[in-house]
């Protein structure tokens, strides 16, 4: 019987908290307007042989340090290194929601993408080809309706696969324009040499190019406190692996 941590990430107003409450049994009032969940909540749930510590990160549009919420969510994923990051997306607003999923995948491949509100999407005549998305993203993609309790078992099965390592991801890597890619290519080895292989070097290089001071501050904080432990995952993104 092992313990795993699952972080719940997603845009505001995607039903992330509904899912969280459903699994952990806590009572939180969910309303239908963006920005309501501002505090991180924690809970526990069991699935098959394992126990999962669930952390409900604040709903955020991105992980680019635009606000305290985003910094908190980002810091949790990078520094606490949850075993699985569950990204909850709104099926009726996929284009915008995928933004966050793609950002998460740049940080970690230990993710499961969960497309919620699938019942609403169907009502609005939206059809989603999960296989295609999963193929493009390189991680499991499950459609659910948290409030109707549809698809939850399948979701938890995928969470288990990723948590136990039964599934290893080949997460999608976004290629930016030439200028940015050049900058990343130069910076990434420097990053790795400075902070080790524990953190996603490419993503950090990207954030440094963007001038992300707050990430730097968080990095300093974390390096002060901890020894650089073994990396939990081999961060390989295709051809840009460094040795």
């Amino acid at each position, binding site marked *: 019987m092992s313990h795993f941590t699952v972080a719940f990430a997603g845009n505001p107003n995607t039903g992330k908290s509904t899912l969280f409450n459903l699994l952990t049994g806590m009572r939180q009032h969910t309303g239908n307007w963006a920005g309501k969940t501002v505090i991180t909540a924690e809970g526990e749930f069991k699935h098959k042989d394992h126990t999962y510590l669930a952390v409900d990160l604040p709903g955020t549009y991105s992980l*680019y340090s*635009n606000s305290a919420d985003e910094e908190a969510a980002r810091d949790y994923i990078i520094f606490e290194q949850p075993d699985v990051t569950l990204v909850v997306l709104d099926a009726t607003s996929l284009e915008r929601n995928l933004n966050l999923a793609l950002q998460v995948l740049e940080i970690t491949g230990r993710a499961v993408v969960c497309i919620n509100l699938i019942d609403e999407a169907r009502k609005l005549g939206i059809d989603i080809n999960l296989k295609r998305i999963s193929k493009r993203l390189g991680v499991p993609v499950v459609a659910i309706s948290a409030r109707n309790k549809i698809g939850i078992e399948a979701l938890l099965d995928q969470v288990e696969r990723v948590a136990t390592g039964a599934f290893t991801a080949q997460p999608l890597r976004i290629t930016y324009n030439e200028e940015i890619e050049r900058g990343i290519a130069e910076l990434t080895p420097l990053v790795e040499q400075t902070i080790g292989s524990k953190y996603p070097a490419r993503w950090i290089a990207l954030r440094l190019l963007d001038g992300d001071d707050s990430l730097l501050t968080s990095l300093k904080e974390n390096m002060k406190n901890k020894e650089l432990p073994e990396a939990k995952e081999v961060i390989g993104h295709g051809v840009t692996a460094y040795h």
Partner: protein
Amino acid sequence: MSGASIPLSEAAKGSTLRISGIEVQGVLRRRLLDLGFVVGNAVEVLRRSPLGDPIAFRVSNTTIALRREESSLIFGEVIGGVEA
């Protein structure tokens, strides 16, 4: 169909614009980018609030309302006509 860029705040209700520029800076700029107001994306002007401000826009399949202070600093070219 190309045309001059106009601020979103002056676009007619029902028209669709392709964003050509964002003059907002700082935190708000990044927030707007995250919401889908990026150069090249299409924006549809839905309606104004009864009191005239804010204006509701449809971008990346989401409805976002912006105040005049912000929408006047986002520019786009009209690509879709006004519905009768």
